[in-house]
Structures are given as C-alpha cells and as structure tokens.
C-alpha cells in the first residue's frame, strides 16, 4: 500500500528537476523505478528537510547529507544501512521492503548525481 511521499513532501519544481535529469532530449521525462522506489520508501526521511537528511547533516558535509546528491553511493553501503540500521536509523526488514526493491534503490543511489 505504500504510496509515494513525494507529491506532497517535496516542491514540484524540485521534483521536476530531479525527474528531468534522467530524460534525453525529446523524450518525455519518466522516472526510473529505482528513483520512484527511493522517493516512495526513503523520501519520508531522506529528502530536503527530512529526519535522515537533518541527522546526516550533523555528521557529513552539507552536500553529502542528501543521499541522492552523493553520487556513486556504493550499493553495498545502502543495503547494509537499510538491513542493519545505522546510527539512529532503524533497520528495515525484508518483509516490508523486499530485496528487489532495495536493489533498485541502491542502484539508483549509485548512479544518482
């Protein structure tokens, strides 16, 4: 039942930029499933102003607190953080976030710039 957070959580302009970043010239901007899954399942904390972003900004340089802007985040690190929890972030178990969805999110964060 989990629906995306993003229609109401982030400003439309930010979403447009994020989505359009993956579009080729002349193509309609279509968000990939990894990005959609990230927004739906992680966006509650890891977008601008979220709990995760705020907690991370106390520990890492400002441009690294937003996971989508890290660029090249290794998939193994995303997977470990999600399954084991990290710092004040609770773990998220397979029954609520299956391996395939997690893999798509991890792959998205690896290639997101």
């Amino acid at each position, binding site marked *: 039942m989990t*629906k995306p957070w993003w229609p109401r959580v982030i400003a439309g302009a930010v979403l447009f930029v994020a989505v359009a970043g993956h579009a080729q010239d002349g193509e309609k901007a279509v968000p990939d499933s990894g990005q959609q899954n990230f927004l739906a399942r992680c966006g509650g*904390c890891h977008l601008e102003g979220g*709990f995760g972003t705020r907690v991370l900004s106390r520990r890492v340089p400002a441009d690294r607190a937003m996971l989508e802007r890290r660029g090249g985040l290794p998939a193994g690190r995303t997977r470990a953080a999600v399954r084991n929890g990290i710092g004040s972030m609770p*773990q998220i178990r397979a029954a609520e976030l299956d391996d395939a969805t997690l893999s798509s999110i991890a792959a998205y964060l690896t290639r997101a710039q």
Partner: protein
Amino acid sequence: MRPIDPRLLARALKRFEGVVGAAHVYIGAEARTGYADAMAPRDPASYAPQAAVAPANVDEVQAIVRVAGELGIPLWPISRGKNFGYGGSAPHFADVVMLDLVRMNRILEVNVAMGYALVEPGVGFDDLYHHLVDNRIPLWISAPAHTWGSVVGNALERGIGYTPYGEHASKVCGLEIVTARGELMRTGMGALPGSKTWQAFPYGFGPSWDAAFMQSNFGIVTKMGLWLMPEPEHTLSMNMQIEDEAHLPAAIDALRPLKLDGTVQANPSFGNVVRSLSTRATRSTYFTGRGPMPRSSLEAARRSAGVGNWNFSIRLFGDPRINAINADRVRKAFAAKVPDQFTTTEWHRGEPLPGSGSPVPSLSALGVVDWLGGPGGHLTFSPVSGFSGAEAWTQYTTIRSMYEAAGFDYYGGFTAGQRYLNHINMILFNRNDADMTARANTLFANLIATAADKGWGEYRTHTLYYEKVASTYSYNHNALQRWNETVKDAVDPKGIIAPGKMGIWPRSYRDAKA
C-alpha cells in the same frame, strides 16, 4: 523462558514455507537483525527472535496458527513494528517466531458517508493518509507523533493522536480475529452474517470483545474498523509558550473544564523545554558537559531557540463561527490563570493540509533520538495522571528529579484526554554506551516502582517491562492478573500467541517458571 525444540522449529518453518513461500520465512541472522529492537536499551540480540513468517492474507494466518498449535510453536504477532520506545519490531524474549503482518496492507473499505475505514494490520498511517488524499475523500486520519506505524497496531496498543479522534482505541469499531485455534471470528455486529453495521455499532449483542483484544494476547487481529473524522470546515490553532514553568499547573487546571464540557475536543499536549529543543538540534549545540543540563544552560537554550519552558497548542475543529466562540472561552479561561498569551493560526478547507491539524506523513519526531549524538535509543515511561495541575506537578517534579539523579535530561509532556493526562516521558540514551543504558534501565525500573507507590500506573510500556508494570496492577492479591490468565488459558490453551505480552503468561510457561 521456554526454549523451542530445534527439531520442532525446523519442522514448523518447513510447513510455514509451504503456506507463505520460502521467500517469506526468515531465519538466522536475517530474523535476528530484521526483528531487533531498533531503540534497544540493552543488547538487542538478547531478545531478538529465532525466525519470522510473513503471511499475505487471513487464510495464511489461520494456516500458520494451526501449525503453531499442532507443534507448540509460540508466535509473536506484529503489524508494522514501528512502536519505537516500546520495543519496536522485537518480541520480549527470543524463543518465539515472529508473525509479521506487514504484508497484509489492504485498505478494504472507506465509507465516506458513515466516516469509517476497514483496514488490515500492515496499513500505515501514511498509506491511509495518501489513500484519502489521492481519492479526495473528505475524512481525516488521526495519528501519533510519526506516521510510519500501523493504524491497527497503534489503536490496539491504545496510542494517542491529536485530533478530536485522538483517543484511537475509542474509535475502533469491529474486529476480525484469528483465534489460537485458527478459527476466524468477527466481533460486535460482524458476528451477524450480512450485517450492515459492523463498523457503525460497536457493541453487537452480548459481551463486547473489541477492548479485550487491545494490549492483550487473546487473538490475532486481521481486520479492524476505525471511525474517521469528517474533514472540518475550519481549524483554529491556539499556541502558547509558558515562560515560567511554575505556571504549568494553572494551565492544566484552566484546560480541564474546557475538556470536560467539550469546548476543546482534541488532545492538547503540554511538552517541556527539552521536547521542544530536541526536535531542533542536538544537546551539544547548547551544552557539552556530562549529566543533566543545568537549569542555567536550559534557560539559555530555551531563549536562543525561542521556546517556552512548556509549550502546547489547543486546536479547535469545525464551523469557524463556533471555533471563534470557543476560542474566546479558551482565552478567558487561561487569562484568569496564566500570564502568557496565545498566538493563533487558522486553516480553511481547501488550503494545503500541513498546519491544518490533520496529520501529514512525517517521521521527524524520530529525530529526538539524536539528542545525545546517537546512535540513539529511548525508553518511554507513560504513567497516567489525574487531570489536575497539582497532581501533574507532583508527578513531573518527582519524575524529573529521578531523571536528573540518574544523569538524564527530563524529556516529557502531558497529553490531555477528557478526564486524564498521559504523562509521556522518554529516557534518551546512546545505545552504544553501556553505562548510559545500564542507568536507563535502573531508572526505568525505579520509575515503575515509585509511580506505583504513589498510585500512578502506566498506560503502556516497553516489551522488556511488561511483567514489572503488570505486577503493579495488583489489587486484591493480583485478582486482575489471575483473571487475565484464566482467559488466556481458556482461549489459547497451548499458549502460542504472544506468551507474556502485558505480563500474561500461558499456563505452560507459568508452570515452567514455578
């Protein structure tokens, strides 16, 4: 505890795989990590479960329960496992198999005209919110501080929200239960085939059982009816910062008659200064010493953050003309007792929901666990207070002094019901600090004992403290405890559903302990 025979466990897991598919049975490290208490006040591995099974529907729940009954495998049902501070997704001892209902996440019905929903245990507050908003359904959810958790789980644990429907347990209307024998049962009007009023008339015919499945281990709830509040035309939020903390009792006494006569229908929550500061920054922003923050540092922090010693909002919902009249009554009642002034904000139907008084999806409340720099954890202590300024003040000062003597900042608030206050306070600690967690546990046990001596009982507690709290409800040689055990033995003779939850142990476990 009673260990599970490994051969029986292996047989059970094999059969569970046959019911739900191997992909939805979890064993070994995956289960121990996945179902650990994320805010654990002690080594989470010490009470992490052996295995977990996640059914997708009621038939699968029934099949699992039948296998568990046949083989004597204790199950620990959870919905979404986001009950942080009270145990999260963990059981209270390791020798169980988690029955994880998170995949049962259908919103089965929303009745707009009658204002109710029928939902499964895996439905989160955010799911229900989006369903209502996306389908332009003019009904509002009520939710606790964060919206990650289960609508069903929260109501069954008697969680609290901040709209006029905030006493969630009282808005439950009709349950579907899988019994310990694996039978399917519906409560209230749901027991009548073809009934049109399962979610409308809460009592049915004969004994009413909805409340017996709350904070209990008598059955597994697979569907729940919940009344939802019609979207109001207008809301008016009256916000006050109490500068001098000694004015808290007067403010509570000002609110009481307004709650009793229905002028104020939502549940205002008086939060202390640390509650306000911890959502903004870590403690080290304000103070870098050890032990509880000194009064002088708290006062300086409070002034720089622009918050009161106590902070609260009274939100009025409904017709703007009636809200204006009620706001006037609120202002007069408080002006006679406290010097601080209200500031107000308004919302009108059609405007964006944030700030309206409707919960919106948010996890920012979890940020408080970062107060000490983390990795953060918390234990929530939740005694009920009489609705009087004098009693709340005694409870606050007693508990605060115990926090400070144990080296912790007091973090707390009083949330007003119609005739009671829930004094929800949290011991915030770093999970990797053995000294701190030891002190947190000692403090928690002492709080339970001290509260009981003064006639204060908890409305809810962490899984690790079920027995300690249950033992304080001891009137007439534990008559209530014996009643609970009698019911447990009758409805779950093999003791397979959440043994020990709320201190209610099945006979076989009691015999083993004796």
